[in-house]
Every structure is written in C-alpha cells, then in structure tokens.
C-alpha cells in the first residue's frame, strides 16, 4: 500500500502587496517550509520556490492541462478587471495574458480555491473607493456575492472560495485552514456567511482585549498612546470585527488594540468604505454609530451611562495616561 499523495498547493499573487505571503512565511507551524510533515506539498510559492520564467510557465501549463493535480489554488491579492473589463491592469508576467484569465482557468482545475487576505476575498484595499482598477475578490465584490467567479461557483471539492480574510490575515488562520483542507475536514457548515472559516470568524477581535476594564467602564482614550478604551473616540471596531485576534495574539504578544490603535475591521468585506476617518469614531448626538454587534442601542446607552458613573478613579486616570499612574489597591491575601 502506497503512502497517500500529499495535498498540493499553488500560491499565486494577483493584485497584492505581498503581505499575506510574508505573514504565511512567519507561521507556526512553518507549513510553507516543512509542509510535507503536515501533509502539504507546496508546488510553488512566490517567496520560496526555485522555479522562474520558463520552468514556472511549464508548471502552470501542466496544472492547467490536468497533468499535475492541484488540491488548492491559493490566491493573494485582488483580481483587477479593468480597464474596461480587459484585465490589463495586471498582466501575468511572461505569459502575455491578464492574471484574471489565468486565475479563472486554474480555478477550473483546482479541488479548492482559497482566497488569502481581504483583497483576494472581497477586493479589500485594492477596491478602496477611488480605485480605478475595477478590483474585486475571487467570489465577492465587497459585500456582494460574485466576483471573478459567480456566486454559485463551487470547486471540485464542493466548497465555495474559502475566504481567509484579514489585512494581512493571521498566519495561523492561513496555515490552520490549509491543514483542515488537506485533512479533508473543512465542510460548508464550517464557513460563515462570507465563507470565512468559522474557527476564527465566529469570534470578535474584542474578545480578550487587554483594555477590557476600560471598555467595561467606558473609560476612553482621547489620543494615541493613552491606555483607555479605543472605541468611543479613536475609531476602534473590535466589538464588530470577526477574528480571534486578541485571543491568539500576533507576532508573539501583539494585537492592534494592544499596540494602542483602532481595529479597522479588516476581516470584513467593504472595510475600506469607512464613513469617516478610520481613527475617529463617528457619532450621532454623542453616541458612536457603530455599536457592538448583537447589542440593542438603548441598552448600550443605558449601560454606558451607568458604567461611566461607576468608573473607579484609578481607571479614569489611567485611561488618559500612557502608563499606569494609579496602581490597583494592594490588599492583603484573604482580606476583605
């Protein structure tokens, strides 16, 4: 009995910044360096592989003709359909054809198609209002279903395009999704309404934020560098943004909110269609427009007023400072 053939993966860059490939390279486990141990064989990756030019063209030809089985076409970057639908804003280098055409052909032979990053998933930054490139995602155009591929498209494996959203996505989201695909355990029910894997998208970036006490008391920062909650004034959308960002942490211990800046909801389609400056919270009559998901507005207003009135002096002072100026009271163990 022969060993099962490894799950094959091809990573291509559409209109991208390369940030998703760089994030993936920093992943733990190092799927793109020692993937065979995890059952994954990378046929080609833009930062790691040997093949260039003619060698790469030959590989793409073999895959396109079905001679080299492709389990996952992994795409980073938006699909540029312009100008005027021609796709010529991104020509595949050396191939003299638009990248959009190449991607459509390869999607037709792949068992799964994986969009890495919000550009490939939804258009993302490449589709920011003001863009002239007719950028879209592989199967979404912002919040609208249907991108390069139509809404009802399914890969040979039965799944729609799997959207590992984020700008850039957490390396763990990329690697763990690919491992689940390789294992054959990712089912349609494991994806949310925007086809994001639910293992990270069913959480909110807010969960585990180390500004939690400031949030609870609505003790808010007013300027970058201060320790208070970033939601009321500085544009933080972590209470609305899908992602387990503060539960798993980035680059070891980091997260956006831990580093003192707003979550910009980069895992959501249309996140670049901000209604005001990203780092300012839009308000109507003093109340933030974007309230935490699932929270009735009247309750939020009532609780915010109550918690503000109950804010301890320590929390109020520290919220506006860049380091702890009032430490928690020290109580003897077992004291009351």
């Amino acid at each position: 009995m022969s060993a099962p053939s490894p799950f094959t993966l091809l990573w291509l860059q559409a209109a991208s910044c390369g940030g998703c490939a760089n994030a993936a390279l920093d992943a733990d486990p190092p799927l793109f360096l020692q993937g065979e141990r995890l059952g994954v064989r990378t046929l080609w990756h833009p930062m790691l592989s040997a093949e260039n030019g003619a060698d790469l063209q030959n590989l793409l030809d073999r895959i396109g003709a079905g001679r080299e089985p492709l389990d996952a076409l992994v795409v980073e970057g938006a699909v540029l359909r312009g100008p005027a639908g021609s796709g010529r804003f991104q020509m595949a280098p050396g191939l003299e054809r638009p990248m959009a055409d190449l991607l459509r052909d390869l999607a037709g032979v792949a068992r799964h198609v994986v969009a890495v990053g919000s550009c490939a998933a939804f258009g993302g930054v490449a589709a920011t209002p003001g863009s002239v490139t007719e950028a879209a995602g592989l199967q979404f155009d912002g919040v609208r279903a249907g991108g390069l591929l139509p809404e009802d498209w399914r890969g040979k494996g039965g799944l729609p395009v799997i959207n590992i959203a984020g700008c850039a996505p957490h390396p763990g989201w990329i690697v763990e999704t690919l491992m689940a695909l390789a294992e054959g355990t990712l089912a349609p029910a494991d994806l949310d309404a925007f086809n994001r894997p639910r293992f990270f998208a069913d959480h909110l970036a807010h969960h585990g934020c180390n500004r939690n006490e400031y949030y609870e008391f609505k003790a808010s920062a007013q300027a970058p560098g201060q320790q208070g909650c970033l939601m009321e004034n500085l544009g933080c959308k972590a209470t609305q943004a899908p992602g387990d960002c503060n539960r798993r942490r980035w680059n070891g211990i980091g997260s956006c909110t831990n580093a003192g800046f707003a979550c910009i909801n980069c895992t959501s389609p249309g996140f670049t269609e901000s209604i005001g400056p990203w780092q300012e919270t839009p308000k109507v009559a003093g109340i933030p427009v974007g309230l935490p998901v699932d929270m009735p507005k009247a309750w939020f207003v009532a609780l915010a007023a109550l918690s503000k009135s109950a804010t301890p002096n320590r929390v109020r002072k520290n919220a506006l400072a860049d380091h702890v100026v009032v430490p928690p009271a020290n109580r003897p163990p077992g004291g009351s």
Partner: protein
Amino acid sequence: MSGAAPARRIVGPFNRVEGDLEVHLDLDRGRIASARVNAPLFRGFETMLDGKPPSDALVLAPRICGICSVAQSQATAKALAAAMGLAIPDNGRRAFHLLLGAENAADHLVHFHLFFMPDFTHAAYAGRPWHGRALQRFQPGAGQALVAAARLRARFFQVMGILAGKWPHSLALQPGGSSKPVDRGERSRLRALVAEFRAHVEEHLFTAPLEAFADLADRSDLARFAARHAGGDAALFLTIAADLGLAELGRAPGPALSYGAYAEAEGALLPAGLWDGKAVRPLDLAGLVEDPAHAWMAGAALHPGQGETRPDLAKPQAYSWCKAPRLNGQPVEVGALARQLIAGHPLIRALWADRGSNVESRVVARLLEIARLVPALERWAAELEPDRPFCHPAVPIETAQGVGLVEAARGGLGHWLTVEDGRIARYQIIAPTTWNFSPRDGAGMPGPLEQALVGVPVGNDEATPIAVQHVVRSFDPCMVCTVH
C-alpha cells in the same frame, strides 16, 4: 548571425522579487545588448488616497507593501508630521528607529537567505566546488540556512508584536510618535530579541562578532575575513562571488542617493547625500522629477510635489507601469550600497573604487548593514524610557504640504503629500525600486537595472538566464512598491 536582427527574449515571471516582473532583452552574440524592465501591475494607491482625510493615509499607505510596511508607515507619518509642524518625543523616535531598523535588518536577512542565495543551487552550477554546500544551506524551501533564517525572522518579529501590534500593516506609527508605550518588561523583551538575532547571525552568517565584519576596511580585509571565517554563509557567498566574478556582473554607473536614516541629536547613523561616483554632495531634491515617457501614464515629467497618476494604456512607446524618477536628469541607484557609500564606510568606498556598483558590492553592503544595524538596535532598545511620553497628539490640518523621506531596506522611499480643505489633494510616492527598476525617460536614458543588464552573458539554451537572475535579485527588488 552578424547582420541579422538581434534575438529578443522575454524573461518572466520572476520568483523571489516581491511581486510581478518581466524583462525584455535584446541579445547580440550571447550578450544582452539592451534591456527593458516591465512592472506589469497597477493598483493605483495614489488615486485611492485622493480626497481622503489625511489620517487615512496611515491606514492605506502601509498596505502598498507587505515586506516594507513599516517603512511605508513611517514615510506617511513623517509626511503628516511635516504638514502638521509636529515634532516627536525621544521615545517615539527610538520606537521608529527600532521598528525601521528591525524591518530593514530582517529584509536583508530574508533577501540573502531566501531570495538571492538559492540561485546558486541551480543545476547550471553543479560542477562548482561550492555547489554541494550551497545546496545544503540554500536549497529553495528546504536548505538549512534558509529555513533557519525564516524561523529567525518569525521569532525576531516579536519586536513588531511588542512595538507595532502586528506585522505587516500597523497603525502604531503616528505623526506624533508611537501609539505603543513600552514598559520595563517589554523593554527587556526587546533587548532579549535583538540579542537572539545577534547570536544567530554571529553563529551562522558571519561566524564572527558583528563588529569584526563592520570593521572591514578594504578588499583584502574582506578576503581575509572569508578565509578566516570560512564556515559562515557570508564567506560562502564571498567564495562564490570570487569564483563567478560577481564583481564584474551587473555593473551600474551611479550616481546613488540616500535620504538619510536614524537621525539623532548627535547626527544620523546613516546621513543623507548624493554620491556622484567620487564624493558625497548635499542632496537637493529641487531637480527631482518622475518622467512618464515610457510608462502607461498620461502627463509630463513633474516634481512629485506636483505629480499626477493617470493611467493611459494607449501610449505606444510605454512598456511599464513604473514612472522614471530622475534627479537633475539622471537615473539614480538607491539601497544599502548607496547608504553605506554616503555614510563613508571604508569597505564600501573601497569596493566602489574597485568596480563600482555590482552584484557583489550590493550584497556585501547589505551584509554590512546587518552588522551595523544590530548594535544600533541594542542601543535604541536600552534607551527607551518607560515613564516618558511616546506620542504627541496630532493637530488638524486644513491646507498644508509635507514630505516624508525614509530609507527602506531597498533604498530611499518618499511620500509627497498635499492637503487642501482638510482632505488629501495629492499623494505621490517614489519607492526604492521605482528608482532602481525605472524604465527609460524622455531622453531615452535607461534606468539602473536596464543599464546593469547590458553586457550580461546569456546562454543559447537559457530560457531564463541565470546571470540575469543574479543581477535582478542583487538589487533586492520590491515590485509591489514599484507599482503602487
């Protein structure tokens, strides 16, 4: 063959160049007679930034590039700070230096181990005495040194986790400083991470203290270092470079510029200047233009403070999305070599005096920069003052201009910002590879890579010539920046 039309060859796609690249070659008797460099992707960040609130540039501009994201952030923050007339506190400056220095050192590490050295594992070199060692250390995706370097970056970028929240794409770099104050525990962790980076490159890359490499003063010093520390990967490169004559390959004539980096009260670690081939002159950007003559861009050659970005695919003479930056009418090379020339490092000055800018000197300059940056990172981390401010609040701007100049790993990066009525009225970016991989200008003058490729040998059976790959990668191109 003589008398016949020169053979033409299109080379691409390239791997390990951070984006899309295609090179068109005219060949004559086994050598490149002329080259045209095409960046075949246009994303249009400059048009996306038009009309946005100025602070939104902090969100969008870093996303031009996923490998020099911090450098892009810093250029934006500096352009905004200049427009606001805002200074940053000492801690903010140290955090900026740590972030940029860490990104640049890591980019040089990744370039050497993942992008450049794997080319010497090519089957074309199977007979060379060093080929087995190259395979062992740098086989794509698997070599010992390559895998270890990638793992080192992942570990080292906990510096980014601490100081920037995440990498790539952070909002921690603000016009008034850093949004992330550092406490005493974090400062200790930063120092430990830099120490770990030093230990790794001293053990594997240099097999010597960093200072031993930083103190080299001329070519004979370099040769002695390679002999004495033959077990290191730097020495492996120097052995290969000597065997293949990489100092003769890919020569670019200069000039070279640096915007200067890591400014401190007592002066900058890397000063600004223009290297004219013999001496450093003051850098004056009054004579800077971006010339769209051979780009799919409408308009005339303009200073980036007045520049525009209007795609025009109908131009018959165009062959790239990249405009051609020119300073006083000249193409200019940027990068670690330029920085170290202008900083007056004796080794790099000696290599220039020998054979100018070439594949070997460009790579040696990056290794030298790793050796010089790490001690500076150690110092900046130690100098952080946890009880003092890291950020001044931004001030609103209605009508103002600002320029943000930084040195990314690959060279000078400039952002030119105009704000009118509280909105971005113009945002123009010239990235390092825009300089190095520029197409021809209106006078027909080729860009630095186009010049460096002339004369490079191409075998008859080489569809993707290996020497061309060495020259291309010796510039450490970042195509995604080029074609923002």
